[in-house]
């Protein structure tokens, strides 16, 4: 038997063996009996009226099983796709959510909008047949740019949404902000763009479905971060399949980063058509389809102003943001630029007055929704950019300016002016440690040395806060969420003493199979190899809200700990009976129940066996079996925080930016498995660096064509674009969950863009070009910034 794992150990992952030997099972790997293949015909136009569609040739093509258009779907009463979070605008009116049919009915609204579905015996036949569909489009003018979409003369994306405005939302005390600005010694102003990103999980989205005529049961295999939520939405809102007749399985999933939270047209149609045709159907996105149809991230245009007193104390912040929603509201799109953005604008600072206004607008582009960090990277980029800009303008060291404004360690719980109550934190030691790791004190010397070689060096700081571990159901419900935000867990022992953990969290790279087993191994004293973590199947796991918002360990892990408590409580009763002792005298230690003060003990395995073979068992007082369920609804968000420091060297001749050092110091509360946490931070930083230096989603402003629609045009971070990262930790445990954990999945991506860009701007300040650069700071843009006169 293997070893008991302890919290805090760098336990190697249990999931690795199958991935390393090619034995992972991703959706596209599944072989369903008599399977057919779906191909979706996508709109080549950003905005067009469909005058007519002729599918007759396609329907007669070899191997074709069925062809469906928007009319077929509408006739079958397939419901539209929904947005599950209703944001109320500043007048209390709900957001405008125009209809979102799974297949466009008479108008297409972005390049990639679904126009028809072809099902055939092979994928190649489906694709060949789709080429024979004749669509007569009347091409219409498109609006792409979010700032242009709010102009009075802008093309309308939806006839029932005047001004392309889904909502105009605000948060904070505007009068207090105005008053503070009136007495400010210094005001820093900033305009910035948060560039649109394509999530690019390496596994493209996929779906496979089958219908069992005998039982009337549907099964959908899909690349989802939250299979139960998918089942709920498809059952209750879209297809009307009773929830108990639909099984949703998200097997191994190759990364998500938010893009696999949402319920898309594709899996909806695959599932529906499987019932309609009686055949199993599989669909896997080609990468170019992923670029066109995965929900994108970010895409904000913002003006902000920070008011400071003469000593650099922040007095007030005002923010005006236009957020691009794309052509339709994706599943959780509305929450991202509001409750995950405006609420984060206090950052780590005591800024007493904050006001944030957000206009969410429709454009003829792919829907935008949560992408790693979701709202919090946008808030952090804005805040940390304006803070560093203020420092430069006031000639105060940016680290010093941050320290002057940090919330003090003794001030927690801390109520911010933008709704959140931070539970814990200690920001100055984090910054100090990061400065030490980055040799911040030596930065100016290195800058001078670089200058002597004709290079521009710069150093940048980004101190972030995030609210994650989504979160109290009552709070998110009051803010418009259509779902609860608890998590479930079941600990199911088998008579032989091994254990299954069934969790509603979903792992698509986060390593739950190891981390969750580790916390239970530690708590119950069971060897790791006797524990199996089961996730991603609605037929096995009682229920679950899935994984996003760095919630798995803080919420899902807490549910597991609660279920483990119930196991211990029941085991104590059994052990008391077996040892003829009083229950109050039983303690649980190192995997065994002991009578305090004696050497009598019952190992957990023996209690489990007794529970399943209850020959000597208190059946009059206790049910047999050892199988406990728990649901955990947190009392607050968790608040990870940290500081990243990036140092870059810019070559003024080429505009190339090289990252010469990258430091991240984080406070994630307690850390269960440092190896896994570091991996999460590395990946997050890489995505943040990608946003800062490389990644840019470009639609042609006139035609709405996606110009960066493949890996030839969209620059993904590759190994040679990145350095190795230098990490450190501080720990202030989360005070309100049983593990004291805060969540680590998004931090890297949240903080990194500002760290990199502050470094780039610091470098460019040597030639006065610091305000002429936006993300991504590509060589071309950097060169132009340097050489613009």
């Amino acid at each position, binding site marked *: 038997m293997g070893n008991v794992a302890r919290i805090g150990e760098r336990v*190697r*992952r249990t*999931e*690795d*063996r*199958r*991935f*390393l*030997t*090619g*034995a*992972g*099972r*991703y959706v*596209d*790997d599944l*072989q369903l009996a008599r399977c057919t293949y779906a191909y979706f015909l996508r709109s080549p136009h950003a905005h067009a009226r469909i005058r007519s569609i002729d599918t007759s040739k396609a329907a007669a093509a070899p191997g074709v099983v069925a062809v469906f258009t928007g009319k077929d779907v509408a006739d079958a009463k397939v419901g539209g796709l929904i947005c599950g979070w209703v944001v109320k605008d500043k007048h209390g009116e709900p957001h405008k959510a125009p209809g979102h049919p799974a297949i466009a009915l008479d108008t297409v609204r972005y390049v990639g909008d679904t126009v028809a579905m072809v099902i055939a015996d092979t994928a*190649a036949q489906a694709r060949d047949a789709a080429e024979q569909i004749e669509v007569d489009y009347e091409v219409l003018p498109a609006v792409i740019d979010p700032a242009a979409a709010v102009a009075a003369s802008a093309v309308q994306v939806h006839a029932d949404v005047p001004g392309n405005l889904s909502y105009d939302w605000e948060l904070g005390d505007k009068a207090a902000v105005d008053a503070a600005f009136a007495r400010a010694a210094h005001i820093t102003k900033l305009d910035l763009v948060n560039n649109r990103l394509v999530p*690019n*999980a*390496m*596994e*493209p989205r996929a779906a496979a479905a089958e219908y069992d005529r005998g039982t009337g049961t549907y099964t959908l295999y899909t690349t989802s971060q939250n299979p139960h939520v998918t089942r709920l939405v498809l059952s209750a809102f879209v297809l009307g399949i009773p929830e108990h007749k639909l099984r949703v399985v998200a097997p*191994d*999933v*190759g*990364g998500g*980063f938010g893009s696999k939270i949402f319920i898309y047209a594709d899996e909806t149609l695959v599932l529906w058509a499987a019932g309609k045709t009686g055949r199993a159907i599989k669909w*896997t996105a*080609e*990468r*170019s389809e992923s670029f066109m149809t995965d929900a994108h991230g970010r895409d904000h245009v913002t003006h902000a102003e920070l008011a400071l007193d003469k000593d650099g104390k922040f007095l007030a912040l005002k923010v005006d943001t236009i957020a691009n929603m794309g052509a339709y509201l994706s599943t959780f799109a509305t929450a991202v630029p509001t409750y995950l953005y405006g609420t984060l604008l206090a950052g780590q600072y005591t800024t007493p007055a904050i006001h944030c206004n957000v206009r969410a607008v429709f454009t003829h582009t792919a829907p935008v929704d949560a992408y790693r960090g979701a709202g919090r990277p946008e808030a952090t980029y804005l805040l940390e950019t304006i803070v560093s800009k203020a420092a430069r303008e006031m000639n105060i060291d940016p680290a010093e300016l941050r320290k002057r404004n940090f919330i003090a360690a003794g001030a927690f719980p801390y109520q911010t002016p933008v709704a959140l109550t931070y539970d814990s934190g200690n920001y100055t030691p984090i910054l100090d440690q990061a400065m030490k790791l980055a040799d911040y004190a030596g930065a100016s010397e290195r800058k001078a040395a670089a200058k002597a070689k004709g290079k521009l060096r710069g150093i940048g700081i980004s101190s972030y806060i995030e609210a994650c571990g989504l979160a109290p159901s009552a709070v998110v419900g009051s803010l418009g969420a259509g779902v609860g935000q608890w998590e479930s867990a079941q600990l199911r022992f088998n008579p032989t003493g091994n254990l299954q953990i069934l969790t509603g969290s979903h792992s*698509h*790279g*986060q*390593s739950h199979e190891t981390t969750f087993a580790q916390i239970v191994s530690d708590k119950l004293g069971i060897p790791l190899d006797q524990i199996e973590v089961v996730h991603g199947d609605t037929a096995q796991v009682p229920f679950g809200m899935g994984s996003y918002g760095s919630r798995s360990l803080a919420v899902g892990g807490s549910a597991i700990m609660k279920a483990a408590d119930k196991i211990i409580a029941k085991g104590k009763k059994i052990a008391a009976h077996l040892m003829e002792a009083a229950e109050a005298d039983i303690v649980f230690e190192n995997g065994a129940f002991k009578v305090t003060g004696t050497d009598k003990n019952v190992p957990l395995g023996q209690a489990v066996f007794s529970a399943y073979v209850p020959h000597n068992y208190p059946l009059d007082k206790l049910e047999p079996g050892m199988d406990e369920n728990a649901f955990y609804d947190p009392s607050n968000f968790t608040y990870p925080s940290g500081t990243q420091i990036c140092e870059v060297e810019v070559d003024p001749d080429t505009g190339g930016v090289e990252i010469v050092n990258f430091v991240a110091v984080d406070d994630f509360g307690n850390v269960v498995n440092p*190896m*896994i946490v*570091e*991996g999460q931070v*590395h*990946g*997050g*930083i*890489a*995505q943040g660096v990608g946003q800062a230096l490389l990644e840019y989603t470009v639609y042609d402003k006139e035609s709405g064509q996606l110009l960066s629609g*493949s*890996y*030839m045009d969209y620059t*993904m*971070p*590759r*190994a*040679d674009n*990145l350095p*190795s*990262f230098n990490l450190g930790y501080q720990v202030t445990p989360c005070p309100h969950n049983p593990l004291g954990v805060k969540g680590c999945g998004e931090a*890297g991506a949240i903080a990194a863009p500002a760290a990199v860009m502050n470094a780039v701007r610091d470098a460019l300040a040597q030639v006065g070009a610091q305000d002429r650069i936006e993300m991504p700071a590509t060589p071309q843009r950097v060169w132009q910034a340097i050489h613009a006169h």
Partner: protein
Amino acid sequence: MTMSVSMTVNGKTVSGNVEARTLLVQFLREHLGLTGTHVGCDTSQCGACVVHVDGISVKSCTLLAVQAEGAKVTTIEGLAKSAEELHPMQEAFRENHGLQCGFCTPGMVMSAIDLVKRHNYQLDEETVRHGLEGNLCRCTGYHNIVKSIIAGAAAMKAAGV
């Protein structure tokens, strides 16, 4: 029109009838059920599909199945000596947490082994980073992949593979 093709995959002779347009990766995945080789793009840029053809790493989405006629192909499924004993490079990835979601992993491992051999087991960080240009990973930020490959190179040398 279908054509017949035969080759050696992971030491076994295999053959099949494929359409002329069938890619090697499709032959491996769909005809042979070797789904460890992945498809991550449609422009031959992600490296999720890397296999060894006659000992050299090849993106199996860039080759027609019929072009591999008579070749010796090794996929991720054919690397480990046995269920218990991983290839030293696989073991190095496990030891150094060089994978998260696992989707890029087969291609990374296959590329890594070829990279090590091409550099005669002598790899520094910069060589590895440049050598991985053709492989995308969205999860790990490459940090631990680079570490894994440097460790794997030493382990391969020690094991004489």
